[in-house]
């Protein structure tokens, strides 16, 4: 494996964007090449430093992935994950892409998802979102549902909201954030939220 492409794979792994095959390559390389292992460890330390917080659990990433992969048949370049998994990945990516797009408060409306609003409105709350106490892995199936419900259709025929509506939403976001600021609030988070609306 060329070192540039290995570097790229390493980055992809660290960003959570690597496919199974790529991940396996990196893990193999870390076992065989000391230099790669050092880089991997540095990334791990940096990552741990960034994310050493209780909300993330205490799973050793490398060990966890290696163990998970050990129980799977070796993937070949042509092998595909299950259809469900593939879809979920896409939905997840689609959602995060939308979030990124929203930074410029560019929005996609959901008039092309017929019936969805009604379904959401009528859905019992417990079904609409996974219970917070369930382990992270459990809500996966529902998650695919809620990603659809998230109303960010990845289809290209989604239309943009009117200029007026888009401006209004920005306005609302700002007002909502500013209303949260107050005398000696315990946290300046609402200020920061308001400021981040202008972050370019």
């Amino acid at each position: 494996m060329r070192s540039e492409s290995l570097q790229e794979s390493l980055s992809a792994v660290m960003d959570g964007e690597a496919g199974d095959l790529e991940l396996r390559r990196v893990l193999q390389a870390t076992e065989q090449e000391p230099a790669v292992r050092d880089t991997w460890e540095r990334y791990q330390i940096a990552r741990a430093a960034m994310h050493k917080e209780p909300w993330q659990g205490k799973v050793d990433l490398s060990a966890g992935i290696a163990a998970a992969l050990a129980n799977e048949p070796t993937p070949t370049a042509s092998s595909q994950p299950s259809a469900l998994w593939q879809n979920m990945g896409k939905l997840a990516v689609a959602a995060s892409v939308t979030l990124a797009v929203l930074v410029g408060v560019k929005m996609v409306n959901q008039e092309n998802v017929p019936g969805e609003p009604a379904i959401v409105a009528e859905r019992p709350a417990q079904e609409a979102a996974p219970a917070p106490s369930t382990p992270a892995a459990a809500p996966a199936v529902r998650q695919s549902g809620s990603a659809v419900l998230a109303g960010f259709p990845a289809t290209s025929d989604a239309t943009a909201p009117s200029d007026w509506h888009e401006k209004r939403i920005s306005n609302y976001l700002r007002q909502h954030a500013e209303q949260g600021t107050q005398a000696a609030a315990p946290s300046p988070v609402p200020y920061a939220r308001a400021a981040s609306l202008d972050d370019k």
Partner: protein
Amino acid sequence: MAGEAQNWLSRMTEAAGKQSFHGAFVYERTGSFTTHEIWRQVGDDVTTERLVQTDGEYQEWLRRNGKLICATTGGPVIASQEASQTINRPELLEEWYELQVLGATRVASRPVTVVAVKPRDAHRYAYEFYLDSDTGLLLKSLMVNERQALLERFQFATFELNPTLADAMAPGKGCLEVTDTEAEAMVADSQWQPAWLPPGFTEGRQAQLLNEGDGQIISQVYTDGLARFTLFIEPLSEEHQAEDLRAQLGPTVAVSRKLNLTEGLFLATVVGEIPPATAERIVGSLLPEQGAQTP
């Protein structure tokens, strides 16, 4: 343990009104990472707070006793009434969140106590508060969704208690004087109240009527003591057209629905730090046919 966590949250709210400090913090949400500096001076009668964004575009706010004095955005702002958003009564939070002291660590070189606030239902997010072990001041907070994804991070990098603030409290020249537009308080009108609210959420203060260009917007804040959302309603017209929409900006969701009422077409929008499905349901319960069915 819950009692201990409650005590810490009480201390957090009290400390905010008592302590002078200066610090630099980061704010991170999906798609945005910004750095800021804050000075808070608590005097006998006057509390002054100055905030500056230290990266990207220059932004500044100066508040005196909660009233916005100047801001880089300038222009009119809504005279903010005291929103009952603070955790004044942590014992009430306990009904909707599970409170727990997780342990101790360090933030901005200071020992902190970590309090986890976990929702008891799917209508709110989880939080982690990192409170200065000495004063109770909030030095870091995280908001996490039900899939354990981080929605928002606020975290001090440097922090100094009781600093010398003399010069630092003067606004910069980019901080433009702010004119208040008085929002009219509004008599409660059940027509504009959602038929369904997530349990525990109550009106944060009286509804307001805001003048916005040629039209008026009704705005109403709801809070469970920690999470907060605002409902905006305004008439639609030929020039002001909108479709149903849902947008997510970091921890904040915005859901718009058109309301076809006998009085005409209106746009209802819920904006807040609540799960999208919950926001959908709230705004959906304003629809005439939905409202009638909802218990």
